Structures are given as structure tokens and as C-alpha cells.
């Protein structure tokens, strides 16, 4: 828990080195698009590369954060910083529980995320460049693999569309 708080704090200070320390190895890898090369040498190289980038370009840290269309927004199911760091673990853990064991954690399900965070304009977390999921993942350069199969729209909007057909 303490570690998580530290990481969130590091995230807030936006200093590149602190940011780097706060990053999990997984996000480092994802940031460099080398999911498939998850070998130890690749990890070491990627860490070195990132350090080089940070040292060479101090301006990296002050780059503006993306403006996201956060949908309804407001109070989330967990603390915002905590969610920024850990939503992928919730989703990944939850997907196996829900599908394989039938334990549906509705509070933390992808559907619930979408229900709240889909844009009020187009009911989607993926439709535009500033949509909730797409906008941030683009900024962080992390490949988004959920929506090839999962719908990024609110169920109500999907029902409307289907019934209109």
C-alpha cells in the first residue's frame, strides 16, 4: 500500500526520474512497444533507453497532459491516482474471475468503467482521439487491446442502435 502511494506521489511530481522509478516494469515495456520481447536483456536495454531519453530531453516531463473527455466523471470507484496506476490489474484480474469462475465484480468491470466514462456526446470510450481510454493510451504510447473484442460503447447506446436497425 505504501509503495503504491509512493508511486502515485512520484507520478504527481512529474519529475522524469521519479516517474521512471514509479513505473512498473510492465508499463516500461509497454511504453516501448516490446511486449513480445519480454526478455531480460530487452528489459535492461529498454530501461537504459528510457533513461537516455529522459536525460537528453528534460522537457519531456513538462509536456502537457492530454485533455480527456471523461464522460460523467466525478467520484470514481477508487482513488483517481490509484486507478491510473492499477486499472489494468483490476481489469485483467477481473476478466479471469468473471469469465472462468463466474465471479462478476460489477463495481470494477470494464462495462462499469464504460458506463461512467464514455463520452456524453458519442457514448464511447474509444471513438475519438480524446476519448477516455484512447486519449490517455495514446499519450502513454501503450497499445490498447481490449476493444478488438469488447465494445467501447454504453449498453444503452448499443441497444438503441440495435433496435433502430
Amino acid at each position: 500500500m505504501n509503495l503504491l502511494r509512493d508511486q502515485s506521489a512520484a507520478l504527481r511530481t512529474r519529475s522524469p526520474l521519479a516517474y521512471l522509478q514509479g513505473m512498473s516494469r510492465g508499463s516500461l515495456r509497454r511504453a516501448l512497444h516490446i511486449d513480445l520481447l519480454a526478455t531480460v536483456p530487452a528489459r535492461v536495454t529498454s530501461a537504459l533507453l528510457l533513461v537516455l531519453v529522459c536525460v537528453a530531453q528534460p522537457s519531456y516531463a513538462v509536456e502537457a497532459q492530454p485533455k480527456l473527455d471523461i464522460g460523467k466523471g466525478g467520484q470514481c470507484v477508487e482513488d483517481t491516482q490509484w486507478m491510473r496506476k492499477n486499472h489494468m490489474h483490476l481489469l485483467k484480474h477481473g476478466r479471469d474471475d468473471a469469465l472462468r469462475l463466474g465471479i462478476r465484480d460489477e463495481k470494477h468491470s470494464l462495462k462499469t468503467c464504460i458506463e461512467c466514462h464514455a463520452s456524453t456526446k458519442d457514448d464511447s470510450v474509444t471513438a475519438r482521439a480524446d476519448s477516455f481510454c484512447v486519449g490517455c493510451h495514446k499519450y502513454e504510447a501503450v497499445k490498447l487491446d481490449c476493444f478488438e473484442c469488447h465494445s467501447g460503447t454504453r449498453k444503452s447506446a448499443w441497444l438503441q442502435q440495435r433496435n433502430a436497425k
Partner: protein
Amino acid sequence: MSDMDMDRRNFLKTSVGAAAVAIAPGMMLYSVAQAKGEGASSKVRWGMLIDTNQCKPGCNDCVTACNNENGLSGETKATDSQWIRKIDIKDISTGREISLPMMCQHCEHPPCVDVCPTNASMKRADGIVLVDKHRCIGCRYCMMACPYKARSFVHEPLTGQNPDVPRGKGTVESCTLCVHRIDVGGKPACSEACPNQAIVFGDLNDENSEIAQKVRSVASVQVRADLRLNPGVRYQGI
């Protein structure tokens, strides 16, 4: 399922929900996890009893309902997914004709689960056979192994899926028994849509359920019973 059971189920669900809401934001993940539902139970065996005497030739309502519920295109090209299909059969020696719906039979010993290299094909504790598309690599061995030809492979990129029914290119899929409905106390779309109530859905292990009482009192068979797979779907009148 009796009304009393249904109430108990709903009570449990709402109390779980209330517990979840009561927990303050920022709580640890594990404490939240304890407040979740108990999941699929091995005490339950979901199944269906299909009365072919009540199934009208030419009626396609169950198929349409399935396509509508699960977001399938409804087209029938060789590369299109069909989770449920109507089969017309005619006894060669007597000429008797029967019409019936065919879908994943949710076997107790599913060959698709045996052959799947990555455990993507799986059977839930309550007997529902599913494809875990997070794990499916699209080798299609399960399609070779299924005696009922119940599975389809997604040949094209998809858009506009039902938020409750994720589907995607390059993975295998089949009837889920509308698991997303069952988990909230509902029943499969085909069963609901049949105008003659020819598809009875329920818990085969619950001796008070309609389906358990019916399979006790009327003659029903499993398709390809010779393979000893013990499907959860049974047919009456063949």
C-alpha cells in the same frame, strides 16, 4: 428455478452490492474482492430440454433471438458465425420429419475442452462450456473435435459488439447459453423467444426445477449419446 430461489439470489446480489457501496473509495483490492459474488457453483448444472414436437419446421425465432442478443450478423455464408441453427431431419426408413434447434450441447466431458492447447476452451463449474477469448489463439482444433459442429471461427474484423458479449476476429466462439443473462438470474434468449415454449431451461441438479421434473417424467435423449459426452442439452420426441 423456483421463485423462492430467485428471491434468495436477488437478495444475495443486492446485499453484495450494498456491501460494495459501503466500502470507502481507496480501499485495498483484496478486501473488495471478498465482497464479490460467489461465482458459478458446481452444485448447479445448467441445461435445456428441447421438445421437438413443439418445434415448428420453418420457424426460426430462436435463431433470430440468438443473433439479436449476441450481435451476430444473421448471415449464413460458410464463413459466418452461427451459434444456433435449425436442423430438419427425416427418418430414412420411416419418412418421419422433425425440426429442431442445434447449438453447443454443453457436454459434461466436452471434447473441445480436452483438445484445446491453451485451456481457452473451458467448462464453468455450473456446466456452461465457454471460450476464453483472452487465451484463444485461433488454432481451430476444438472445431475439429466438436461432434455437434457447434463452433464458429470469426473470419473478419468485427465492430459494434454487444457490450455483454465480446467477440473478435481470429478467435473461436459458440453458444454461451447466454451466460451474461444467467449470471443475473435470466434465461437464454432462444428459450425466451420460442413461441411454443419448446426450449425449457433450468438447473438439472435442482430436483424441484421444471426441467428436472420434466426430464424425470418424459422420454428424452441426448444427441450422439453413443459418444458418452453427457450433454446438458436433451431432446424430446426424436
